[in-house]
């Protein structure tokens, strides 16, 4: 099903300190679709996004974005590439000392010299798309978590990027906001002809919009395919993850000595 | 926008306060005005001892500052201290037989060059030398002289 590939991860290995986060991971992310990367907390999903965006360097392997090796690019070329990327951070990461309007206008002001009326129209259009045109004059501290994330989404899409990364967009949101965000991500993907890469562990929301999903565990991909493929997967691990069972291949307990050893050794 | 205006006003106030502070330090506290290049001409004098005289020490006539010490060095011929002074052009008519002495302002004050004005018609021209000088008082010498005098007096 992936006909045209946007991002190609080849034999990626990455350590954080002593801990191996990714172990010889290979993955292709298709263009023009919503791709979900799922996995329990601490499997390095966010790290994977940072590696793709070139903020971290892998210890082995390479990542090709639109055919370019991200980590071989010069700083200027990397920055040019990033103008075609949008990233929605977990917390929104709005610049706290700028208003909502200025936050969305920020990438435009930084990279292009636009006439003020044009800039204003562009920014307000983007805010309208996330339903927050009326909030343009607020400071980020006055927004709720969900609103901040929507503003961040407007900001991430203001440069008309080719790809948008979502880092845990649903964490800690009420059901309504979640619904709004799910809807927005889907709509943006089709209306702006984007490729979306979604990192999350909110199984139901993700599977409802993802065209293609993969499940990470211990630095490897355990399963990939469409939402239906995953739901029908016969891998025990995938079943545990998707249905949220407390025990299974992923044990409840942190690695520990058996009780017997605890007492036998003084 | 009002926030921006507020910031601008406060920064303006900060700059204003700095300017006032610098002006105060320059004019009232330090000798900034003294080293501004007032038009001046140079004369010099030889002393056998300059004591604690320093560069930019004032040169005074009757207690009024008329110039500053420009440099102090050793005259290669006489091996005496050669003190060069910048005298402001306003005081261009010092008589040739004026005399210079190194004096102290108060008991512990700094030293300055005092000029006693003479009576001759000819005036000192730039580069001229003051011939009559009196060196700084050196306390040890003074005490020495006093001792000699006292012992002399005892002999009589």
């Amino acid at each position, binding site marked *: 099903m992936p006909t045209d590939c946007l991002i190609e991860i080849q034999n990626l290995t990455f350590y954080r300190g002593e801990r191996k986060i990714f172990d010889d991971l290979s993955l292709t992310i298709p263009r023009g679709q919503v791709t979900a990367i799922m996995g329990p907390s601490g499997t390095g999903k966010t790290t994977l996004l940072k590696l793709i965006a070139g903020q971290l360097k892998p210890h082995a392997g390479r990542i090709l974005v639109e055919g370019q090796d991200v980590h071989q690019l010069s700083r200027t070329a990397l920055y040019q590439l990033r103008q075609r990327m949008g990233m929605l951070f977990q917390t929104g990461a709005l610049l706290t000392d700028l208003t909502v309007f200025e936050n969305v206008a920020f990438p435009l002001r930084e*990279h292009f010299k636009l006439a003020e009326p044009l800039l204003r129209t562009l920014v307000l259009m983007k805010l309208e798309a996330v339903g927050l045109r009326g909030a343009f004059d607020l400071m980020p501290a006055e927004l709720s978590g969900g609103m901040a994330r929507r503003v961040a989404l407007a900001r991430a899409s203001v440069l008309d990027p080719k790809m948008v990364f979502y880092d845990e967009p649903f964490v800690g949101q009420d059901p309504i906001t979640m619904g709004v965000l799910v809807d927005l991500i889907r709509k943006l993907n089709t209306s702006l002809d984007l490729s979306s890469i979604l990192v999350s562990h909110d199984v139901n929301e993700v599977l409802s919009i993802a065209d293609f999903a993969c499940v990470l565990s211990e630095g490897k991909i355990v399963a990939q395919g469409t939402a239906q493929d995953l739901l029908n997967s016969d891998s025990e691990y995938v079943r545990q993850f998707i249905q949220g069972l407390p025990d299974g291949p992923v044990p409840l307990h942190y690695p520990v000595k058996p009780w017997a050893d605890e007492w036998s050794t003084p | 926008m009002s926030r921006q205006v507020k*910031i601008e006003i406060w920064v303006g106030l900060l700059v204003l306060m700095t300017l006032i502070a610098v002006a105060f330090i320059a004019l009232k506290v330090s000798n900034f005005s003294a080293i501004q290049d007032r038009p001046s001409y140079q004369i010099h004098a030889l002393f056998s001892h300059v004591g604690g005289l320093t560069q930019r020490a004032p040169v005074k006539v009757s207690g009024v500052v008329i110039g500053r010490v420009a440099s102090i060095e050793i005259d290669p011929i006489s091996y005496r201290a050669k003190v060069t002074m910048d005298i402001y052009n306003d005081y261009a008519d010092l008589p040739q037989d004026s005399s210079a002495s190194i004096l102290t302002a108060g008991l512990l004050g700094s030293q300055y060059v005092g000029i006693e004005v003479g009576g001759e018609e000819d005036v000192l021209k730039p580069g001229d030398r003051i011939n009559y000088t009196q060196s700084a008082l050196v306390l040890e010498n003074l005490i020495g002289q006093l001792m000699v005098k006292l012992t002399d007096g005892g002999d009589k």
Partner: protein
Amino acid sequence: MIFLRYLGSSSLEVLQALGKLAFFVFSVFPALPYSVWRFRLLLKQIYFTGVLSLPIILTAGLFVGMVLGLQGHNILTSFNAEEAVGTMTALSLIRELGPVVAALLFAGRAGSALTAEVGLMKSTEQLSALEMMAVDPMKFVVAPRLLACIITLPMLAMIFIAMGIFGGYLVAVGWLGLDEGAFWAHMNDQVDWHEDVINGLIKAIAFAVLIAIISLYQGYESVPTSEGVSRATTRTVVHASLGVLGLDFILTALMFT
């Protein structure tokens, strides 16, 4: 064995930190000229570092000057040299206390705020977000703050000195009844614009660079948690204060010997 291991590991850590610091310094200085262009950004930072430090500088300056006037008067009276009170106050303020105390207060007021702000920007992923928007945080966040410090600390030091001399004047002339003319004239005679005031300014600029680099580095490299940021803030105040005192000794030795 344990001692050797400790020595080895801690010196490696120090070396690593120094390397990081050097890298930080080398990447921020090329970004400095760029921040002159961002006039509004710079203005805002001057407001945060300068204007907000103003009240503490004004009060501290006044009190330090008053104490100097009082102590100077007490000590100099026993030498019958009260008229030197002004000189003593002015010289100690201009040469040492002005730049140093202003820098210490600045480190506590503005330096810690800078660390906390930049650390918070890091922990809320704002720095990452800037990078993702293809904006160099060195240019947008670090450089304007460094430049603002370099501009404001000398200004604050000058205000501190003027305030201090005014405080000394209040005590010596207003309260202890010293002759006003003697106070100013003696000072005027002894304080040299070039030797004293300019050197004091140079000190203030050096301290500004030191404090800004330390506090921005601590914020930039802080562990992005609330605990990490608060630790970094404490470290900023400690390192910057010690740094200022050490650097002051070196500068004094170079300037006034």
